[in-house]
């Protein structure tokens, strides 16, 4: 990479300075962020519906939910919270590094974010396999539900697999988005000139973190 790459819009290719139907790059960046926020609003409603369902079952089956939360893998779930929080800090730092023209640092920070995303999925799969070994499967299937016959147990664990599984899908998509953006940074197509594109990916990654921030206390702590 030559030293001139960072400050020469011509090196960015056809993506700079801005798409022709936008007046300038600032307006294009604003439009992309607004589009992302509208998408995130629909994500809030998707997960919000699931959270509402969880809350209503918790009111109806307080004992089964309390028992199941204590039974859950608290240490692994808490560790995963830390993993996602640190990944959010890394990707926020990456955005500012790229804006400041430090592409190499930004690339490393995005790589670290993705690595933590994989770590999250790894810990999650250890957690799932432990529950499978305990005879806990979605839909109230497994030996656990022979020993814990009351209603509320299938509801809790089905929501556990459903909501954490939906979240894990989002983490996976987030890693893919970051990989795409990382390729842009490494190839010099994504720099401080059009750094708003990294903003969009980072905002999505942060939303995935925010959802986990609420999943953690509900399924593991309280």
């Amino acid at each position: 990479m030559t030293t001139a790459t960072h400050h020469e819009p011509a090196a960015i290719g056809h993506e700079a300075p801005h798409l022709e139907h936008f007046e300038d790059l600032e307006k294009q960046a604003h439009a992309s962020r607004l589009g992302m926020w509208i998408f995130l609003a629909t994500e809030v409603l998707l997960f919000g519906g699931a959270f509402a369902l969880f809350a209503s079952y918790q009111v109806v089956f307080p004992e089964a939910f309390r028992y199941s939360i204590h039974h859950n893998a608290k240490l692994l779930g808490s560790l995963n919270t830390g993993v996602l929080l640190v990944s959010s800090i890394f990707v926020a730092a990456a955005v500012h590094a790229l804006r400041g023209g430090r592409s190499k640092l930004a690339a490393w920070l995005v790589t670290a974010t993705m690595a933590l995303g994989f770590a999250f999925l790894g810990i999650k799969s250890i957690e799932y396999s432990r529950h499978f070994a305990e005879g806990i499967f979605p839909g109230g299937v497994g030996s656990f539900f022979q020993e814990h016959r009351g209603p509320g147990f299938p509801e809790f664990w089905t929501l556990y697999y459903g909501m954490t599984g939906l979240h894990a899908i989002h983490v996976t998509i987030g890693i893919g988005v970051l990989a795409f953006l990382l390729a842009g940074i490494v190839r010099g197509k994504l720099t401080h000139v059009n750094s708003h594109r990294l903003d969009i990916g980072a905002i999505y990654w942060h939303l995935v973190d925010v959802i986990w921030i609420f999943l953690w206390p509900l399924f593991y702590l309280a």
Partner: protein
Amino acid sequence: MSSVAFPRSVTWTGVALIALWLASFGLSFVDLGDAALVVALVIAAVKAVLVVAFFMELAYEPFPMKLALLSAAAMLAILIALMAADLVTRDTPPLLPYRAPAPQS
């Protein structure tokens, strides 16, 4: 100034998030009774606001941008309020606690 890559808002948000994470984890070992869920959710809400405001930078965006998230929050509030109203006004819960049938012998 080029050596200063990260605004202080990002640094301090990161520090606050880690501190709140540890606080929430520590408090989960304290028996707070029914307040435990409320305390954990309040801490979660503070963390979420920090991430949305300073990492997702919504604090610096114009109002129309904030409106997207606010409208989702409003719709969610309506959903939860109506659902709660339904739950507390039912004469009999539709999903009764399980009663084991008397053993037949």
